[in-house]
């Protein structure tokens, strides 16, 4: 085992090989994951939870014709692996047939590859994370504000082998630093960064950005709910775009007729300026070249110039339509194309509107219209005649994402990775605020 405590490609494939060899199923898929993470949480400007863990886990999918079962375990002695395989094979034999199941996927071409493993992150220590938090807190101390948040460093590897010849291996790292800053007189601020390399995250910059917001948002005033123009920072846009991911960019809801895309492929659904795609190999996202079935991830245009253009398939949903998997058996990495505006230009062009730093606790209030509810949080401001008039108390939004993307006036030029979505700022001409809260 190396310094990063990963086992390496040959060791993972060897473990998977034990399972494949032992399986009596007609088709067998074995996924082995190992990983290690360290997470430093802080609140009230002190480290209050500080953790590390590692795990090694195997998932096995066994297939007899159209009968499929899955099981997983983290007991990976030879005896443990054989017991896991025996269990899943027995489950699959007892299983009912799924008429839509065709086959596990076969091997796919190597994806265009981008490095996602950063030794700096893999080797990061609790002392380094504590130093980063201290730098962030120092920025908050300057405005007499307290910081809460987390600093994460994670290293992981995954091998997927199946009896049809799939044999992929991938290792990567992820780091993040996120903070919510509580300032004086009801002020709050937020900032967040995610990257593959922990060295790409400037803790002072994160702290400074959030502390500035907490200072500027103190003494918020009441604002009557209603319809306003809205300027969304990239953090807020990421929640909006992320909601599309929940509401049906994958094939299963599309096929079942409960996606906003159902029956609309090839038709214009949002404004011409909107371009959204999925690309897990874009170096600006946390790269993942293969999905959980070991299929190479494809770039998929989801909305192109406002037109519904594509959906994301795993092998099961692809086989249902006689198509090939796009490599989306596990999650998505949505990217929205930037425009050319700055946040300042968006504010300057707003007659009377609301600047939203980010949203909290968003949920789908209505599926087919992708109507999102949720609160604004950590810096909400009234804009009047092209200038920030002052902070306002948080507002509840109730807004169709589709309608909002039909009313985009300006798109920001800078993108931020938030909640695994790469998003720009947006200026939206009509945005519905349903109610207000008391802070």
């Amino acid at each position, binding site marked *: 085992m190396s310094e990063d405590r990963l086992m390496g490609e040959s060791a993972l494939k060897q473990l998977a090989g034990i399972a494949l060899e032992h399986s009596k199923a007609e088709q067998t898929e074995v996924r082995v994951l190992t990983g290690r993470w360290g997470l430093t949480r802080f609140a009230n400007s002190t480290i209050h*939870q500080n953790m590390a863990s590692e795990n090694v886990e195997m998932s096995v999918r066994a297939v007899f014709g159209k009968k499929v079962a*899955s099981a*997983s375990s983290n007991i990976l002695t030879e005896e443990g692996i054989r017991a896991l395989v025996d269990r899943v094979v027995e489950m699959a034999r007892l299983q009912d047939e799924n008429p839509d*199941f065709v086959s596990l996927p076969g091997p796919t071409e190597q994806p265009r590859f981008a490095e996602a493993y950063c030794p700096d992150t893999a080797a990061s220590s609790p002392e380094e994370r504590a130093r980063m938090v201290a730098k962030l807190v120092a920025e908050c101390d300057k405005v007499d504000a307290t910081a809460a*948040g987390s600093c994460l460093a994670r290293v992981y590897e995954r091998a997927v082998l199946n009896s049809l010849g799939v044999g992929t291996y991938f290792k990567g790292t992820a780091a993040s630093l996120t903070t919510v800053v509580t300032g004086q007189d009801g002020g709050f601020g937020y900032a967040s960064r995610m990257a593959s390399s922990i060295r790409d995250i400037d803790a002072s910059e994160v702290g400074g950005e959030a502390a500035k917001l907490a200072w500027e948002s103190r003494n918020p005033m009441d604002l009557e709910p209603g319809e306003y123009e809205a300027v969304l920072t990239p953090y807020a846009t990421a929640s909006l775009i992320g909601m599309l991911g929940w509401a049906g960019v994958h094939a299963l809801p599309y096929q079942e007729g409960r996606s906003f895309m159902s029956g609309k492929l090839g038709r214009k659904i949002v404004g011409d300026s909107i371009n959204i795609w999925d690309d897990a190999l874009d170096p600006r996202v946390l790269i993942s070249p293969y999905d959980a079935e070991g299929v190479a991830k494809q770039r998929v245009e989801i909305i192109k110039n406002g037109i519904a253009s594509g959906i994301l398939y795993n092998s099961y949903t692809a086989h249902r339509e006689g198509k090939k998997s796009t490599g989306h058996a596990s999650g998505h990495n949505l990217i929205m194309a930037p425009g050319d505006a700055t946040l300042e230009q968006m504010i300057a062009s707003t007659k009377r509107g609301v600047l939203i730093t980010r949203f909290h606790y968003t949920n789908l209030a209505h599926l087919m219209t992708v109507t999102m509810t949720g609160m604004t949080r950590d810096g909400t401001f009234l804009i009047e005649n092209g200038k920030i008039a002052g902070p306002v108390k948080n507002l509840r939004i109730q807004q169709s994402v589709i309608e909002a993307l039909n009313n985009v006036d300006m798109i920001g030029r800078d993108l931020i990775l938030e909640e695994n979505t790469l998003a720009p700022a947006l200026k939206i001409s009509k945005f519905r605020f349903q*109610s207000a*809260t008391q802070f």
Partner: protein
Amino acid sequence: MLENLDARSFCDGVLECARSLGADYADIRIVDRNDEYIALRTGKVEHLDNTSSSGFGVRVLVDGAWGFSSSPHLTIEDGRRVAREAVRIAKASLTLKRKDIKLAPVDPQEAKWESQFEIDPFDVPLEEKIGLLRDADAALRRNEKVKITDCSMTFWRQHHVFASTEGAFIEQTKTESGAGIAATAIEGAEVQRRSYPASFGGDYATAGYEFVKSLNLVDHAEEIARGAVELLSAPPCPAGDHTLILEGSMLALQVHESCGHPIELDRVLGMESSYAGTSFLTPEKLGKFKYGSEHVNITADATLTEGLGGFAFDDEGVPAQRTEIIKDGIFQGYLTSRETASQLGWKSMGAMRADGWDRIPLIRMTNINLLPEDWSFDDLIADTPDGIYATGIQSWSIDDKRLNFHFATEVAREIKDGSLGKLYKNPMYSGITPEFWGSCDAVCGKDEWHIWGVPNCGKGEPGQSAHVGHGVAPARFRKVRMEGAK
């Protein structure tokens, strides 16, 4: 896994190592979990999954700062490595220490507890479990406008050992079961869903397979399917301020979001402010703040071990307790840990639980219960000349201090002249927590009271999912803001 381990000797060895490296306090949890999830979707078994995971986590206090590390490798060598790492992490925490963490006292216990069940769900043949779901699925799909069905059951067994440098050694084994069905009717762009006995997978309890059998899923399938189809042509819920009667599972979620979370003392003290948020129920409000009307009496009760939030000891070795949270509408108490309770000069009421061996314990809800009054449901409807009866969870959202909330339910029925009337689709209601509970003027009685199991309460980083319970009976609220999506 645990049966092959001398748990006491392993724990002693790891704790002694932590102490020798400078830990003033240390505890260890060994956890062995086994889960089974079976799900049919529209006639096809899409999930037949079994997951097992075992490992241990070590938590240490060094000079008043926390460290935690964990591993799946249950060997004494790795136990010592993990203890060393936990101490190193705690020392890194000292970089930003502003005050010492202190733990409220607890009497260290030696105990063994197993939850009760009649039928071991892991012994029930798979064919029987799949067969039950298949029968329910077939009954749902007899209605041709039902295009999607979901029928599932889930079983969990967790065996865990807790030991501390204070001398505690507690073994607990908990078996939990749950199941549910749902029908989605689709016609053009109209999509409507009804579920039984509750949304998002059904209802859950600390029990065995007998609980799943008691739900009589097949017998309820036809009604659920018809309900979803009827909603396709129903008008939207009318907007306005309405008298609202909430059905049990929806009210359970209302209790969860607007009472359960804001009484978590770690939230109150800012420890979760960067993620889930804080709370409006700050300590100066204890004993005087009017949270709700005199009809609102809420307890946190882990001693009701049949509920999903029941247990014998929490993950700090504190015995399960029943704590008054709201008494006659007045705010009285919190969910606490040893660390947070000490800040108020209290003892812990025992609400610390961790989601597995690789997570630290956090303050989690136990069974947060709205106590019953004496109304029958029929009498409550009959007593309501004009209102809305809302059933089933559709969506939920609440602000980061737990004041401004918004819920959508699966369905609403008009209440007119004391009788249930026409159906409304896409109902939504919203409000401000103390105003909403202040408008409660009736709670149904024991016959309608049930502890709903919620197996997916999210909190913390990395994310943890807790199993919690909410005992409620339908209740009535006045002047609630409602609307309906078209």
